[in-house]
């Protein structure tokens, strides 16, 4: 269901782009992150982090999915397993952070929308960035997927996509509207 909904929205956005030049500030960054279904004896939903990194490796946080439900914040103990994210700002973040942290998600395609004007993305200087998506799973593996992009995003270049091999499926980047 989520997949279909996402496709419709993305399609509409692509059409809209042909006719309107929407102000960048009113736009939303839309990401679709696929968590693959894995045939393993013990499955835990992965921790996932999404951030943008400029050429000097300065990170702008986009999203972190981790176990918020455990007693005594014990879910935070495993945040360092998102080891690149941990290094690129995670370790300096006082979680939970409004608009960035959320609970984990199971297998499927998950849409993530970030209103650019209301987030740190509004402060990004134009230039080259890498969108990095890292997933780490308890008693499982860890994977990092990268999508190089130019900010602000140009609609003609969208959607961007990349795919992981183990812990992440297809990642798509679009703009709304």
């Amino acid at each position: 269901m989520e997949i279909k909904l996402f496709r419709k929205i993305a399609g509409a956005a692509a059409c809209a782009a042909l006719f309107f030049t929407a102000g960048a500030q009113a736009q939303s960054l839309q990401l679709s992150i696929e968590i693959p279904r894995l045939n393993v004896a013990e499955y835990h939903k992965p921790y996932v982090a999404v951030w943008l990194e400029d050429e000097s490796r300065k990170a702008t946080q986009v999203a972190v999915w981790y176990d918020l439900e455990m007693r005594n914040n014990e879910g935070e103990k495993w945040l360092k397993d998102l080891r690149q994210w941990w290094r690129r700002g995670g370790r300096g973040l006082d979680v939970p952070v409004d608009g960035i942290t959320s609970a984990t998600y199971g297998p499927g395609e998950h849409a993530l929308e970030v209103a650019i004007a209301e987030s740190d993305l509004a402060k990004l200087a134009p230039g080259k960035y890498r969108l990095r998506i890292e997933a780490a799973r308890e008693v499982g593996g860890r994977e990092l997927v990268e999508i190089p992009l130019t900010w602000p995003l140009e609609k003609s270049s969208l959607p961007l996509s990349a795919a992981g091999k183990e812990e992440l499926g297809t990642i798509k980047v679009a703009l709304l509207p």
Partner: protein
Amino acid sequence: MNKNVFKTTLLAGLMAAGIAMQAEAHRAWILPSSTVLSGDDPYVTFDAAVSNTIFFPDHVALGADRVSAFAPSGKKIELENSAKGKYRSTFDVQLKEEGTYRIGVASAGLRAFWKDDEGKRQMWPGRGQQADDSEFDTAVPKNAKDLRVTQSSHRIETFVTLGAPSDSVLKPQGVGLELVPVTHPNDLYAGESASFKLLIDGEPANQAEITFVPGGSRYRDKQEEIKLTADAAGLFSVTWPSAGQYFMEADFEDGKAKAPATIRRGSYSATFEVLPL
């Protein structure tokens, strides 16, 4: 065969030379269960041993009673659940503050070696013993044959970090051979290069000799040592060939000793964890 002969000779020579040198025949280390941590008040458990094979306890335990742990605020913190086994000690440290912790052993003092009237080798302090420098005058005969007096220092340490790394526990104390990280010791990644500085009594340890050995040496034929020399500023850098735990040792010797010593000697060793990119 040749190698074995060499080792036996070397070992015999080192043993004869006494404790200071014996430290070089075996490697003393403190190994943390993890170095990069998140969450509330996590624990790190440590092994401490003196061994031939890197990170495999095979010789003697390094007593936890000699180990001190310092929190990011500089406060000395208690070791918990200390136990001394045949081959290694274990202890736990709880990280209640965010930042970088230093866990280690440090000692410095005079050592003397000489031959008595019967031509037998003598040393002070005795093997495995500690002594205060103030006892030097009464314990060491000043006109003994072949008297050598060294000012020696030893330091064995490791670092762990909760949350963002901090620098307060990394400040040098100005005593003996010390490591001053340029690259943070809990921010090390395979394929990247890391820089460090060695100081002797607070001054650059020019020409100090450094060796890195990757852990797991039992499962390979070669030590795969990385040998480096500190420059005039005491600086050196290493590019980590792969992720894993690394043992580092450094030695320094010169003649700028405080009287009555004529030789100044410093040894430093540390354990680092390098993470995959």
